[in-house]
């Protein structure tokens, strides 16, 4: 368990009151210490953007053009911003799939697989229900089934970690490849819709069985579900004994065992919840965007979600804004490609720059005295 990144979850982990002076300015201290967790990731984004700008100049493209197209394609107009929000929904949910296990000390990167399988499970379950059950019942059942499937899938990685000590990072990524293969197996075989000769897909849900838009917007309900889940998960992690037990386990595995905490159940439960979030993302991709399950489900949201969660320092309340930022970049990808004649992997390169610089910036924590509370200067 000792291989997880250090993620102090709140200021109280860092600063214990050391004397009356500290207690007096507790709030100021918290602000001061917490601002480090905002300033350093922002600095990392700035440095990564600068490096990416140099990269663009080196290949003869203008970084200013890039910024203006990302703005226009992702944020500038009401239409593009709604598109961005739509794209950020799966990012929020797959980021949660990384953030929740991180709390218990696990680096799970199986969100993509849980998304694909969850979406596929929803589409498969829909086939016998279309025209039989009313849409609202069918959609709720599909969402539940998608979450169960995703939860089961990532839960496997959690269970293997606890029961057999299998490295969860590798196993969750392997499960992603297996999950995509399972979907392809069915979509190209038993569950293929033969009336669609172009792309192997399951039977379409049809308009009546699609998730609608949030009234007054062009954004589907997945976005609202993502925000709601972020709040619920935050409360679960920070305000319940269940979340506290998980934090203890993540902080010190042996201590948790010695305390008699049900470590195995906690690990499996947290992995399961994480997978359920990603599975729900798959449900919305199928029931609100694609209308059927096919290979386009594996669009890489699960991988961008990893970056979103790390940037948000695995804090559920910070995930939505970060996800919206990246949703915008992903949404603008097409425009950037066409107008600047850049390959479609441009966004991936930018994400790679940000991810690498962000993790490098981990080394900066505790280096700046400006963030250090004066009363605890002698502490490290």
């Amino acid at each position, binding site marked *: 368990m000792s291989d997880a990144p250090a993620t102090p979850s709140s200021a109280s982990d860092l600063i214990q009151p050391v004397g009356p002076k500290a207690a007096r300015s507790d709030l100021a201290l918290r602000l001061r210490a917490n601002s480090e967790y905002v300033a350093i990731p922002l600095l990392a984004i700035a440095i990564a953007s600068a490096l990416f700008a140099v990269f663009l100049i080196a290949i003869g493209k203008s970084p200013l053009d890039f910024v203006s197209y990302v703005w226009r394609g992702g944020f500038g107009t009401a239409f593009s911003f709604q598109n961005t929000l739509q794209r950020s929904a799966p990012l929020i949910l797959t980021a949660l799939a990384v953030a929740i296990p991180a709390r218990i000390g696990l*680096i799970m990167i199986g969100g993509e697989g849980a998304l694909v399988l969850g979406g596929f499970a929803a589409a498969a379950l829909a086939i016998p229900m279309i025209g039989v059950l009313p849409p609202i019942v069918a959609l709720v059942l599909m969402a539940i089934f998608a979450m169960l499937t995703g939860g089961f899938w990532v839960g496997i990685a959690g269970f293997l970690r606890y029961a057999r000590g*299998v*490295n969860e990072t590798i*196993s969750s990524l*392997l*499960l992603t490849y*297996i999950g995509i293969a399972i979907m392809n197996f069915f979509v190209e075989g038993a569950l293929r819709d033969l009336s669609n000769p172009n792309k192997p897909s399951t039977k379409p849900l049809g308009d009546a069985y699609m998730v609608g838009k949030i009234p007054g917007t062009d954004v589907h309900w997945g976005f609202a579900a993502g925000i709601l889940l972020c709040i619920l998960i935050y409360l679960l992690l920070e305000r319940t004994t269940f979340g506290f037990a998980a934090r203890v386990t993540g902080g010190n595995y042996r201590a948790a065992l010695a305390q008699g905490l049900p470590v195995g159940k906690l690990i499996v439960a947290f992995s399961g919840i994480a997978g359920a979030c990603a599975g729900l993302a798959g449900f919305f991709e199928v029931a609100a965007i694609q209308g059927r399950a096919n290979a386009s489900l594996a669009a890489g949201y699960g991988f961008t979600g990893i970056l979103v969660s790390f940037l948000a320092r695995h804090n559920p309340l910070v995930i939505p804004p970060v996800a919206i930022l990246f949703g915008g970049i992903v949404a603008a990808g097409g425009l950037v490609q066409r107008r600047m004649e850049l390959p*479609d992997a441009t966004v*991936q390169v930018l994400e790679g720059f940000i991810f690498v610089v962000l993790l490098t910036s981990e080394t900066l924590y505790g280096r700046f005295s400006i963030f250090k509370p004066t009363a605890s200067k002698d502490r490290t």
Partner: protein
Amino acid sequence: MNDAILTVLIAMLGGAIRVSTPFMFVALGECLTEKSGRVNLGLEGTLVLGAMVAYAASYHTGSPWIGVLAAGVAGSALGAMHGSICGLPKVNDVAVGIAMMLFGVGVAFFFGKPYIQPTAPRLDSIPLGFWTDSPSLKGALQVNSLFFVGIVIALVLAWALRNTRWGLVVRTVGDSAPAARAMGISVNLVRLLTTTVGGFLAGVGGAFLSLSYPGSWNQGLSSGQGLMAVALVIFARWSPIRCVYAALLFGAAGAIGPSLQSVGITQGYYFFNAAPYILTLAIMIATSSATHSARDMPGELSMAK
């Protein structure tokens, strides 16, 4: 029916040799890196970037061997990046590996776009099947010279780790960083070098993918081979020789799908494509333990507990 089984077995033999080569290179590179006590999960990205660079270099220069070298250099660059970042305090090597994986794949796809169409000169194979009349056996024994290079590297690596001063330094750094520091060894420098050399080997593995088998460059070229090779090192218990055996086993698993296809069994193609992943997972389950760390594991390794 017997003929069909024979054909499948021969195709699996040939497939095992062909498919195993990239596994072998990545596993050997990762083996060296992990021997020094660090994990580089980013070798999947290195493999893909190596494949792209090799293809591009071979296309522009007309010499596939320059492509192999270029892939190694590109892989070393990624390895050096990983090695130097992880040398900083408080940086988590597993997380950096994930980032390097996404970075390497992104860069490879970015620069690889113009090379999807054209064909580059490929590495020649050595026809070891000259003694037989069976065309399928002849085909199976078309072995690429990189396969033998890999075996030689495995032998040299195994010997050097056991018998040279350099090998002792790497093993000391991997087993106990404090002991290495007490000996006056720069732990970070040793790990930087092993990660760089590991990246070189993984890059060469990528060159095999694009220049020999499957022998073209596209975005679906590698899907997890680099990652599986990392898992394979755990299975091989950090021994270069066992890495070769493990790579052959994985190669055979990876060859099941295409071999069955060669006799017309296309049912469950995707299922058999998943066979290597399932095998990897099964092996990890079988060889890991919840209570004690794996045998022969370098003591400094943060992964696998």
